[in-house]
């Protein structure tokens, strides 16, 4: 069972003709994570971007980054993103999401508020 190769990734020549069964989601940028080994940030970033890929909503997703280790989430996620103040990510997300509902475009928001 093969999955589609993301256009953003380079595959080595040896991979020619092989079935791709798993890879880094296309919407994760190439930047290596700085998170500590064992930290769930890395896993959650990947899972969220896998969802964005699977549902094909990269152009409909706007992320809100919190304060904390994942303050640079926008360097890892290739979607439009905003940086929120400490504890205010929900409000920032409301400002974006409710607006979009009015303009009749379904936007899905990712908020990682992990500092509280």
């Amino acid at each position, binding site marked *: 069972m093969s999955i589609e190769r993301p256009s953003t990734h380079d595959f080595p020549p040896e991979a020619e003709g092989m079935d791709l069964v798993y890879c880094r989601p296309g919407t994760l940028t190439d930047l290596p994570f700085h998170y500590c080994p064992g930290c769930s940030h890395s896993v959650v970033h990947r899972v969220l971007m896998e969802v964005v890929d699977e549902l094909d909503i*990269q*152009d*409909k*997703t*706007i992320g*809100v*980054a919190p304060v904390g280790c994942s*303050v640079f989430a*926008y360097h890892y*996620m*290739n*979607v*439009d*993103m*905003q*940086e*929120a*103040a400490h504890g*205010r990510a*929900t*409000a*920032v*997300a*409301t*400002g*974006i999401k*409710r*607006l*979009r509902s*009015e*303009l009749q*475009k379904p*936007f899905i928001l990712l908020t990682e508020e992990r500092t509280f």
Partner: protein
Amino acid sequence: MKEEKNKNGEARLMKGNEALAEAAIRADIDAYFGYPITPQSEILEYLEREIPNRHGLVIQAESEIASINMIYGAAGAGARVMTSSSSPGISLMQEGLSYIASAQLPCLVVNVVRGGPGLGTIQPSQGDYFQATKGGGHGDYHLIVLAPASVQEMADFVFDGFRLAEKYRNPAMILTDGALGQMMEKVVLPEEGSLKKVEKPWATTGKPATRDHNIITSLFIQPEKMEEVNHELQAKYKKIQDEVRFEEIQIKDAEIVLVAFGLSSRICQKTVDLAREKGIKVGLLRPITLYPFPYQRLKEIAEQVDFMMSVEMNAGQMVQDVKLAVEGKVPVYFKGRMGGMIPTPEDVLEEIESVLNKENVLQD
């Protein structure tokens, strides 16, 4: 009352807060996120009543802090947004305003100032001048500050505020007070839809394949980058000085010039009349933009006058800027009332006369 339509819009008798709210709808705002507080709750209430029948979004947030962060989010997403509050609520918004200025987002914030400090009173005051013009939030940033002095200007400055905010990608503030918010005057409302939308390619609208992802942030953790951003902001504020606006009343032959904004300027207009009747040549300079402040014009006026007097409803805030402007050339006096009290035109005239008398005494 028969309403007349003219080229610019309708003439109505309206309360300041409501005229401002109506102007916001006519300015095609995408959203208003606010929280009630006396003396400006009518802005939220008017929009909650009208917006469902017109266009846009209105949300009462859970607090002023939430309001300003919703503004940040929506402005970052490219929307034309406004919030409003009064002094204690505006204090809560200061962190948000610093973020908005640093991320270079346009928005309009209305401060209907009430007596303070603290929970204070609901009566009008001008005690937030420092907070508005010197930056109430942290860091080297400025708000573009407009000070209306009539219900007409409460409406007009919504358009001007958005125009400036979007031109410079900077938050703008309308610094008004409880009296202007509550009083009723004739207003010719601006024409609906006449404030053109501005292209915002930097906004987070959802990343299409055709561009890189947009990031809205005020975090620049490398100091070299942070310094660069600060240089950018300072260059912008330098350009903004060209937007200075003020009104001159009987300045030409004035020997004494009053400097006052907002409600105080309305009082001083009457003082000028009373003084002139007595043969005292008083004029009035009314700053319309408090940031940028008319330093240059005041410096010029200092060449022709005996003294200036700043008239404010606070303990003496704008007077410092007047003193800076004249660079010691002439004495600058101050007349004020605090805590929500409003001076009368006669009070101000009395102050002018007592200065004149003291001066005569000194010359003996």
